[in-house]
């Protein structure tokens, strides 16, 4: 646990969102017994430490017109996955990039990249561009396109209702 109890109070109070009013941090402070100055200082610090990744608009990508998404999975030799993961993570087309464990024999892939686009063709073109430009086309990879979305809500961490993806 990298946060203090007071920080956790603030994290919980902010999780579902900021009030849309002229002084939202003063408003937020009322819920946790902090004045506006303390709320702003603590949030600045939480953002500096990367616990608040960002603050602002969180969109529903589908409603914004990003109708296609593929989870592109790659089988990269363990000795190269850190370096290639870093590179693919920096591609503008890639919205998320994680290393995950293989589950052999059923699942040989260890690097996962999400690519979103307006339609399937756009996403396919983007994947081909990444593979070519980054020199990773020779590694086995596969796009798993989303067919249906059944559920999308912010992850809920117990009473904390934390808004994490």
């Amino acid at each position, binding site marked *: 646990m990298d946060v203090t109890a007071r920080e956790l109070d603030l*994290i919980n109070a902010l999780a579902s969102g*900021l009030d849309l009013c002229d002084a939202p941090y003063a408003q937020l402070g009322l819920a946790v017994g902090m004045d506006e100055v303390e709320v702003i200082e603590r949030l600045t610090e939480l953002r500096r430490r990367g616990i*608040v990744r960002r603050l602002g608009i969180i969109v*529903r990508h589908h409603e914004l017109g990003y109708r296609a998404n593929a989870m592109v999975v790659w089988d990269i030799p363990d000795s190269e996955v850190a370096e290639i993961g870093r590179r693919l993570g920096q591609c503008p087309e890639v919205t998320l990039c994680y290393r995950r464990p293989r589950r052999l024999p059923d699942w040989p892939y260890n690097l996962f990249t999400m690519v979103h686009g307006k339609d399937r063709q756009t996403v396919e073109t983007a994947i081909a561009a990444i593979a070519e430009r980054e020199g990773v086309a020779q590694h086995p990879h596969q796009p798993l396109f*989303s067919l249906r979305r059944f559920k999308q809500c*912010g992850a809920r*961490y117990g009473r904390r209702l934390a*808004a*994490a993806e």
Partner: protein
Amino acid sequence: MDEIDRAIINALQGGFPLSPTPFADAAAPLGLTEAELIDRIAALRRSGVLSRFGPLYNADRFGGHNTLVAMAVPSDRFDAVTEIVNSFAEVAHNYQRDHHFNMWFVIAADSREKVAAVLTEVEAGTGLPAHDMPKLTEFHIGLKFEA
């Protein structure tokens, strides 16, 4: 959505000011008044384009744990299995994908133990193996979308 809405979305996915009057401060460079910006954001939230106006946390840092789970679900049982999986409050997203492993969902909870318990319950409830693939390294979490 019009051009102003698009400009707001592109400007404010992150970087919201930490100041006493953040909406006024964010509105100025967009050529809007504080009240106009607040009204626009409220309307976007009502329309469902915004899921929320607030934080994106790194929950790993305050004890949260999550994992990605893959299942191969027979097509004739797909809807029934979906219903079982989605009934868990800890299941945050669930997508059908075009692969032998056709169901992919995220389990998020307060602790590793709770995530493991939900995984066991999913397997028991569906009678299907659930392959969990927790992240080992996070290289990037951008999730910003141009409007």
